[in-house]
Structures are given as C-alpha cells and as structure tokens.
C-alpha cells in the first residue's frame, strides 16, 4: 500500500468519525429540547405555585416568588377542597388496591405455572382474552350493581375489583415462566412444607422483582384513576385527589397562585417518587408489562 492511499483511508475514517460526531451532537440537542418540553410545564407550575395572583397575571417567569406559604394557607382554607384528605383517601385506596392485586395476581400466576390441572390452559386463555377489556364498557352495569348492593359512596368498589388484574397476572406469569425453578417446589414438598407455605416462603421471594414492578404500576394506576371514583363517590369528604383537583378547574377560583399550588401538590410528590423508583419503572415498561 502506498503512502498516499494510506492517507486517503485515514481521511475517510476521519470523515466518518466527524459525521458520527456531528450526528450525535444534533441528536443530543434534540433530546435536550424534548427534555425541556417534558419538564417546562411542571417547572412553570411549581414556580407559579410560589407567586401571587397579580404576578402570575403579569406573565410567566422562571424565577420563583415568595408567596408559597400564603398560597398554601389559602388552599387549606378553601371550602370543599382539602388536599390532605384527598391525599389520605387516595393513599388508602391505591395502597390497599395495589397490595391486594399484586398478592392475588402472584398467587394466580404461581398456580398457573406450578400446578398441572385440567383447567390450567382454559384459565390462562381466559385471562388473555379479558386482558384488553376496558373498565368503561362495563361501567354502567358496575355502578348500578354497586348501588343495588349498597356500596355506593364506599371504597369497596374502588379496592376489591382492582384485586383481579389480568394484566398483572399475565406479567408475573411471563416472568415466572422464564426464570422460576420448578424443582424448588418439589424440594419444599420433600421437606414437608405445605403448598401455601411454599408459595409464601419460596414463591414470593423469587417473584419479588416482578411483583415490586407491578406494585409500583398498580399503585400509580389506582392513584391516577379518575373515571371509577367519579362514578362511585359523590360525597366531598370521600373525594380522591384527582377528584379534588378537578374541582379547582372551575372559573370560580380566581386566586391563581392557590390553584397552581393545589395542582402542584398533586403532581410533585408523584414525580419525586418516580425519580426515586425510575430505574425499576423503566425496566418494567421495557418488559412490556404496562398498559393503561
């Protein structure tokens, strides 16, 4: 190879590297713009929650004000809106619904993988078939049924139905199929463990990764649910947080600082928790286990 052609090939390589570098830079810039688009509304919300109404009406800014406490006080003094009650109610509902649904789903998935019974195939097929049926299509019959059996304005219709979550069962079953050592169940039997104890002491620890991801998703889904609670709950003191926030949308409230404070109270804690758990959440989404 002559010196000249060597130079030429280096040049091509150089060109190639430069073009990759430029492309990477442009893409990084686009990603930064998208990051701003994702964060800016939330940032403006938080900033406006710290300003008073006349400042807010004067225009948007990126610098926080010093009316935070006042806005908070005004919000707390508001009749019919109580963010703390909303928080408590949402927490009770989402927490119990998530825990129960993940436990029952794990139990169901465990049965579908570990035991060989006649209806195993049909049971799984059924879960797959109902996986995509939305709540909306049965809402009318559901509410009428709840009224009839006296559960209207209670949390039972918001917690108990969530226990049967086909998508959670599906996700945990897929996880189990790929990684669960079936021999270990046999070994536990030889050691004299009862079947339910085996599930509790061996099944659950082994399913923990899948269960914790699903616990997060179930909690978020129930926390964010507006549709079902607004059909079932009519008494203000039982409102969930999204329902409370909805009352703020009325034009009646002209104290904008207070309104922004209310919205911020419903969004910021969720975002903080999200950033703490983001690693597991992103992994969970990548596994294709979510749908809403």
């Amino acid at each position, binding site marked *: 190879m002559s010196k000249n052609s060597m130079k030429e090939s280096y040049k091509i390589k150089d060109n190639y590297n430069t073009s990759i570098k430029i492309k990477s830079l442009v893409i990084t810039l686009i990603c930064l713009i*998208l990051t701003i688009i994702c964060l800016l509304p939330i940032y403006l919300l938080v900033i406006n929650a710290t300003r008073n109404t006349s400042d807010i009406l004067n225009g948007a800014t990126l610098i926080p004000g010093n009316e935070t406490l006042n806005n908070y006080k005004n919000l707390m003094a508001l009749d019919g809106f109580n963010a703390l009650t909303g928080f408590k109610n949402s927490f009770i509902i989402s927490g119990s619904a998530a825990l129960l649904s993940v436990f029952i789903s794990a139990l169901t998935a465990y049965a579908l993988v570990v035991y060989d019974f006649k209806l195993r195939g049909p049971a799984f097929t059924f879960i797959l078939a109902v*996986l995509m049926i939305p709540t909306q299509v049965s809402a009318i019959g559901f509410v009428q049924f709840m009224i009839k059996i006296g559960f209207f304005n209670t949390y039972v219709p918001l917690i108990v139905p969530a226990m049967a979550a086909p998508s959670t069962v599906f996700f945990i079953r897929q996880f189990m199929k790929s990684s669960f050592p079936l021999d270990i169940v046999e070994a536990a039997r030889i050691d004299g463990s009862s079947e339910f104890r085996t599930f509790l002491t061996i099944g659950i620890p082994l399913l923990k990764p899948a269960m914790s991801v699903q616990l997060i998703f179930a909690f978020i889904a129930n926390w964010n649910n507006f549709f079902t609670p607004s059909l079932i709950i009519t008494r203000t003191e039982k409102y969930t947080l999204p329902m409370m926030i909805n009352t703020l949308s009325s034009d009646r409230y002209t104290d904008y600082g207070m309104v922004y404070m209310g919205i911020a109270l419903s969004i910021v804690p969720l975002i903080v928790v999200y950033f703490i758990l983001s690693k597991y959440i992103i992994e969970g989404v990548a596994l294709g286990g979510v749908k809403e």
Partner: protein
Amino acid sequence: MASNAQRRIKHVSYAKYGYFFIIPFFLVYFIFSFYPLVNTMRYSVEKNLSKEATIYDGEFVGLDNYKHILTSPDKNAEDYYVHAGMREGFLRALSNTFKIWVMNFFPQMILSMILAVWFTDAKLKIPAKGFFKVVMYMPNIITAASVAVLALKMFSNDSFSIVNNTLLNWGLIDEPIQFLADMKLKRTIIAGIQIWMWFGNTMILLMSGIAGINPSLFEAANIDGANSRQVFFRVTVPLLRPILLFTLVTSLIGGMQMFDIPYLFNPGTNRSPGTQTIAAFIYQIYMESRIKNTGHSGAASVVLFIITAALGSIVFYINRDKDEIAAKKQLKKLRKQAAKKAHGGLGL
C-alpha cells in the same frame, strides 16, 4: 433410592391446589368485572331508569336503544327527538375520538420510532441516555386529571394564561388566541397532551423491541454497505412488525377509552361537545343527564365493547403462548401416530 417422602409425593395429586390458588382471582373477576358487563348488556335492552329508582324497574325494549344510536331517525316516528339526539351525540363522540386518536398516534409513533432507533444505535455517542429516558417517560406517570387542569390554566382564552401572555409579551400575536373556543384547536391541544404523556412509553417499548433483534443482522447489513435508512426500512421495520402491530392495537384500544383529558379539559362544568369522546358520552348521558340514561349509555358501552373486543383479539393472538401451542400440536401428532399404530392396518 427413593425416600418415603418422595414415594408419597409421586402418589399425591397437587392439581387441587391449582384450583384453590386461582379461585380468589376468578371469584373477584366474575363478581366485579364479568357480571357488570352482563349487567350493562341487560341495561342496553331496557328502558332508561328514572333518577330516583334504585330498584330495578326497567322495561324490555329490545334493540331500540341500539337503533337510536346507530341508525338514522325517522321523522314521523314517535321517538324522533330522542333518536335524532342520541344518534347525533354518538356519531359526534365516535368521530371526535377517532380524530383525536389519529392526531395523537401518528406523530407520536414517528417521534418515538426515531428516538428508539437513535437510542439503540451503538455507533452514536449520546450522553446521559438513561437520564433522557427517565425524563421522557415522566409525563406518563402524572395524574391525567392534574395535567388536564394544568393545561386548562396554561391555555385559557384570556390574555393572562401562560401561553397567551408569553406570546403577547413576545409580540408574536396581537390578540389572545381563543384556545378553548375553537374546537379544532382544542382537539389538537388534547392530542398534543396525549403525545406529551405517551411518547416516552412508546419509545421504551420500541427500544426493547429493537434490542430483541439479533445484532448480527445489523452487523451483516453494515458489512454489506447498507446506509442507516436502508437498515431502518429493510431490517428494523420488518423485524419490529409484531411490536409495531401491538403498539398500534393497544394504542387504538387506549384511544377508544380516552376519557380524563378530553373530559376535564373544560373549564368548570361546561363540557363542550366538540371534544366529547365515546367514554365521555357514556359517562355524561348516564351521570349528567336529567334521567339516568342507562339504556343508551348501556348500548353505547356494548358497541364500544364489541369494537375493543375485535381489536383485543389481535393482541390475544400476539400474546399466545407459542411454546405451549407447539407442544400441544406435537402431542396431538404423537397421539395420532400411536392411534394409527394401535389400529394397525384396519383403519385403512
């Protein structure tokens, strides 16, 4: 040498525990999900309940409710006004839902696809990929109700809303834009919010799809001198087809149930019909009408159920346990062969 315990286990059937363990799920499902669906179907063929009635007193009206929402009204018929009103409302809701979905899905898909290809390209050097992923997925976890109210405050018609105010201050517009008065604009904003909330989710799904493609295929394409466009259209897209189909169908099903944002992106209780989706139609004629319109909302629910069930069957087909089906086929084949052998030549 088999121990006593092992021998005992061989004789015990554990099948019954399978039933015990799945009973809670199926019990809850049948009572709280399946029965309500059947109940909805029943309401769809009955006359509307009056608001006061808590005890079942519906009268069977056959397919009248379906006729009202689906067929064109007859001017001379007794029920002309109900019929025309319901049909107009349902068709409008159907068209709104579809319009918002189309405006949301295609731009979102293109954006997510481009990002997914960039993020999985090992040649590109993008710093802080993990951070970008986390931030882009973030809008998805925020309460939709809060997002709707926030958007309402940002896009209100007056000159004080964040968007109008900023545009006025920068001198880009002379008069505040009537974001909430123009239905087309309003639907576009709703679609924009949906994109904002969902593009990160779609991107991560597509990324895991691309990560599942055998990397040697990309290497081979590179060695053969394919440029990035060729790699994308000849390798990535064809191999992603199942995931693309899955995303399309789940997005369609999600779009059909769209409720929170279109319903709450209205100031106070002034729900504008221009953004009413099917789910909002069902909700409103049941919850917010003078009578408890169980009949028409029930019928609309059943129509929605049929549409989602048809779409859901595609997801069902994708999710099937392929190994199990293959194993079953194999078993059947073996059984047939065994049966043939047992029968000897007699079967012929």
